[in-house]
């Protein structure tokens, strides 16, 4: 049932069925891909996140849920330091990816983002060809410089994103000419082309129709084998469908985190209960 804990158990020979019970009282765990401790985020003088501590395991899907403005996207953007682009944004606390603090001065955000890919709410392919979209990342990172190497990466990435069969005949047509769902898969292909450790997805399906959404969810389920995926979603059903673990945010605070099944069937906090049952949010 809980694929994540099984795999992590196998990997480390330890049993950590539930890694994070609450925002307080965390058990140290070296198998966590992302480990956040006491993260506070300020936009100017306004505080958006309050003491968030969370562990995210590898090779699994973790869903962040919560009402609008609860800070889940903000937290997500802290993980690959996309918040750096906002001048007034200040982050305190520590976020470790593979045991290294992302806010460390020694960490170059460019290197960090190469290993922590991101998919956004609105499909945002570059207004270039499909090939160029996928090849851009590998090219700037120097992963493949010759054409055959690039072509191989592009094909692999598109295959992994489940888009290859649909676009293999028109790789040199603009990526913006694809449908919304295809564009989103193209963007996922672009993200996995640089072979990241983690893929952050910020409401990847909110601009898509149910069929495209189903495809993306299927894709997420497949990608889980090789990547640590964190997905922000407004759809409780989606969180229930694709994720193994769920974190519930409310008013900038992490209310509860745990195996998805547990959160949805037996939430500890009354706010989680209310949100899941649709009483607010």
């Amino acid at each position, binding site marked *: 049932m809980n694929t994540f804990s099984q795999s992590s158990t196998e990997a480390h020979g330890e049993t950590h069925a539930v890694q994070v019970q609450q925002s307080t009282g965390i058990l140290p765990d070296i198998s966590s891909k992302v480990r956040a401790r006491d993260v506070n985020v300020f936009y100017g003088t306004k505080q958006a996140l309050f003491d968030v501590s969370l562990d995210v395991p590898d090779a699994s899907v973790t869903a962040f849920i919560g009402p609008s403005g609860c800070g889940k996207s903000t937290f997500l953007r802290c993980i690959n330091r996309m918040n750096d682009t906002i001048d007034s944004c200040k982050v305190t606390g520590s976020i470790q990816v593979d045991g290294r603090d992302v806010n460390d001065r020694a960490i170059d955000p460019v290197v960090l983002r190469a290993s922590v890919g991101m998919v956004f709410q609105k499909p945002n*392919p570059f207004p270039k060809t499909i090939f160029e979209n996928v090849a851009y990342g590998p090219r700037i990172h120097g992963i493949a410089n010759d054409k055959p190497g690039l072509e191989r990466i592009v094909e692999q990435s598109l295959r992994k994103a489940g888009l290859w069969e649909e676009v293999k005949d028109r790789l040199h047509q603009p990526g913006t000419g694809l449908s919304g769902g295809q564009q989103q898969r193209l963007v996922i292909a672009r993200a996995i082309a640089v072979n990241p450790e983690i893929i952050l997805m910020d409401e990847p399906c909110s601009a898509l129709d149910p069929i495209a959404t189903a495809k993306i969810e299927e894709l997420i389920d497949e990608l889980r084998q090789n990547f640590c995926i964190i997905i922000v979603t407004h759809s409780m059903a989606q969180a229930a469908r694709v994720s193994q673990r769920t974190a519930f945010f409310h008013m900038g605070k992490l209310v509860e985190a745990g195996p998805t099944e547990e959160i949805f069937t037996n939430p500890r906090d009354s706010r989680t209960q209310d949100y899941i049952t649709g009483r607010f949010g």
Partner: protein
Amino acid sequence: MSDPAAPSRTALRDIVNSQIKRRHAAETRFRWFGITMVATAIAACGLLLLSVISQSIPALTENRLHLTLNVSAEKADPFGKRVPSEIREHGDFYGLVQDALIQRFPTVEADGKLDDLFDVVTSLAAVPIGRTLAQDPSLIGKNLDVALPINDDLDLFLKGAYGETRVSQGEEPLTEARAADGTYTLSGGPAPFAKPVANLRKDLALSATELETALGLKRQRLSIAQTQVAALTARVSELKASGGPGLAAAEALADQAQTLVDNLTGETEVDQATIAAYRAAVKGEGGAIELNDDKPSILVEVRGGTYKLTRIAPSAAQGVLLARSPKGASDYVWRTVQIATPQNGRAVNDEVIAFGRQLQSEGAIRPALNTTIFTNSDSNEPELSGILSALVGSIFTLLVTFCTAVPIGVATAVYLEEFAPKNALTDFIEVNINNLAAVPSIVFGLLGFAVFLTFFNMPRSAPIVGGIVLTLMSLPVIIIASRAALKAVPPSIREAALGVGASKMQAIFHHVLPLAMPGIMTGSILAMAHALGETAPLLMIGMVAFIADVPTSFTDSATVLPVELFMWAGRPERAWEPRTAMAILILLLFMILMNAVAIFLRRKFERRW
């Protein structure tokens, strides 16, 4: 629902209905305001274009004199060295043209009209012949066909720009009889000149009326001046008696007023005499009319000779010979040419007109499309002037502007928009860039003069300095346009690039800048088009100059199209007017071309995201 105070539904609907009429009326009114304004703008634009085009029509074609020169060695290369520089320097090419002209009118020297014949073509027009011969000295000793632009005023006359010219063909054969004093009497048939005389009377009557109106105004001024004189004289005598101060000043004023009165009196007397003479001529039905240079000219062309009439009656006329060409000797058809503008009122005299018309009727003067304006540079002679040097100057200047303004402007915009921290300093810079866009361009000219010419000692009148001054002027526009274009690129593109691990530089130069490029190019080209039309700042750095040679480098003296226009518009000869209008059209054409390129670029590279 049951609230008794609330109006019923029908009442509500009535209120809405009563409002709706007003709302529709307001909308209609607004639409009509808009349509009226747009129509006014279009009409004004159309009027401007129409006026420029109609004024430029005379400059669309030019009359050229086609001559076959007998290139004699002693005139073209007096030292016989056949060296290009020697030929160019010592050759008498205008002499060759003069010889060819004399060949056409063999008796011109005896008639004493040599200078008038040579007035048909200016000496400067012969300069290109020297160039041709210097390039190919083997042409010396052979015959050379040339086509030369003719005297600008003759050109205008032949195009019909000098008032009304009536040409009527005579029916009965005309005979010429030479009197002892050298004048000729022309007669033939019962009344060969009935028609010209009738026309002349009409013209004279009209002129008399016009003069009379002018005279009335003059008389009013005279009476005012006389009153002033009387008053001033009284004051002078009063001051003399009292011995008060200001006597000298009052006397000077009185003197001035008296001079004015004298002048006006003289003028009114002359006018009165002219009117009386006109009236007398009109009244003398059947009698002869004396002609002079203050009356309309009448030329008679018969058998290759052109006579200027001094006295005309329906039955016969007296005149002097102006021109005689042997070619037309056997032609029995004769014509009278009536030129409504008196000779004293035009820049081209009857002699030159006579030669010009003869050359035209013989096919030696033919109109052609005006290419001189494109191939020549500035000249004192309108017929030899062109815009080439100014056009090349404009291109050089714009090249400098483009090469400096666009990189600096775009770089500044990228830095301010993408990299600069938002603080008081950048705010200050931003406000000032916006302010700079509104600074009068002459100020940039003054700055260029003070900094580049005086401080850096850069060459005067040079495209490099002009280009830099225009750069300063167009930078704010380019920066503002580029920043707007950068801002218009959706942040999702930036995030996408950053998300796959591009650095900020890479995200900007690989994705944001290419997407903003159409907007940047449009803004830059519009700024360039603006710079192309700029005059004021260039005046300050000496680009307002007579440039007869095409500039070949960025430091040569040069001028630009709008400045050339400005200079041409100030020159007195009438032929400059159509040429200036033509130059305006060429300038407008370049503007339209640049704007078209801007639109094309925008359409071509506009991308959707």
